[in-house]
């Protein structure tokens, strides 16, 4: 059962990529795309995903696109203005260090999303993830306490993600 769910999810994702790349919905293109994605999914499903079709549940897709994605883009724009300020400022106002934070997320997929989002947001950059601990290079260290740093860095994304992941 788990195998079929993984295979179906992989095939659907491959088909979406195929449609985006060919840029048409003509039936002969679609038939070729379906055939190719089914064959590829048979060989790659076990390395492509661990959770299967659950990832495409309407709740995850809709919340991801409407709620999480705009928030991430907004954070990225803020991050870039922050970087621009630090690069252009003649005194180079940086105060770097590596801090440790704890994440509340359980599944590997959610941890990956949190770690990637941290890398893209202001002044922080994930160096390593071990279990539920993350090591983060912070360009402007405000606290080296684990609890406080956990609230400040992954906390904002976790609040956002908790509602539809896990």
């Amino acid at each position, binding site marked *: 059962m788990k195998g079929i769910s993984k295979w179906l999810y992989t095939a659907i994702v491959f088909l979406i*990529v195929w*449609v*985006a*790349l060919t*840029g048409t919905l003509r039936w002969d293109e679609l038939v070729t795309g379906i055939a190719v994605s089914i064959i590829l999914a048979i060989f790659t499903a076990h390395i492509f995903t661990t959770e299967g079709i659950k990832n495409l549940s309407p709740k995850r897709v809709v919340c991801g696109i409407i709620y999480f994605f705009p928030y991430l883009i907004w954070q*990225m*724009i803020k*991050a*870039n203005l922050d*970087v*621009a300020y*630090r*690069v*252009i400022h003649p005194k*180079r106002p*940086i*105060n*770097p*260090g*590596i*801090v*440790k934070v704890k994440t509340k997320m359980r599944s590997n997929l959610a941890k990956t999303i949190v*770690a*990637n*989002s941290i*890398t*893209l947001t202001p*002044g922080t*950059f*994930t*160096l*390593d993830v*071990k279990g539920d*601990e993350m*090591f983060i*290079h912070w*360009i402007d*260290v405000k606290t*080296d306490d684990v609890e406080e740093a956990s609230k400040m860095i992954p906390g904002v994304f976790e609040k956002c993600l908790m509602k539809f992941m896990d």
Partner: protein
Amino acid sequence: MIGKVIGEIFMIIGGIFMFLASLGLLRMPDVYNRMQTSTKAVTLGAMSSILGVGIIHPAWLPKCLLIIIFILFTNPVSAHAIGRAAYRTGVKLWPGSKCDKYGEYLKEEENA
């Protein structure tokens, strides 16, 4: 016409962020701070210029969105891999750094 102007504005914004990223590479003191500037600014810069191309040529828009999604997924992962590899091969932090919890953790792991 209006699409062309909007697309060009996006491309210029992307170019500015790319320029800031390269300036950051020159100005920052160590590998980790350089990774900070280059990852963030290059990700948004590349996304913005590719979106600009997509807006100028609407027929390419699906492909451009696909490229943007791939960049969004892969860029942070490669940055993380480079940073971790740099630390593990012994690249030192900038002397002005505040704290280094990762080094403490690695030492503990060695002794255990």
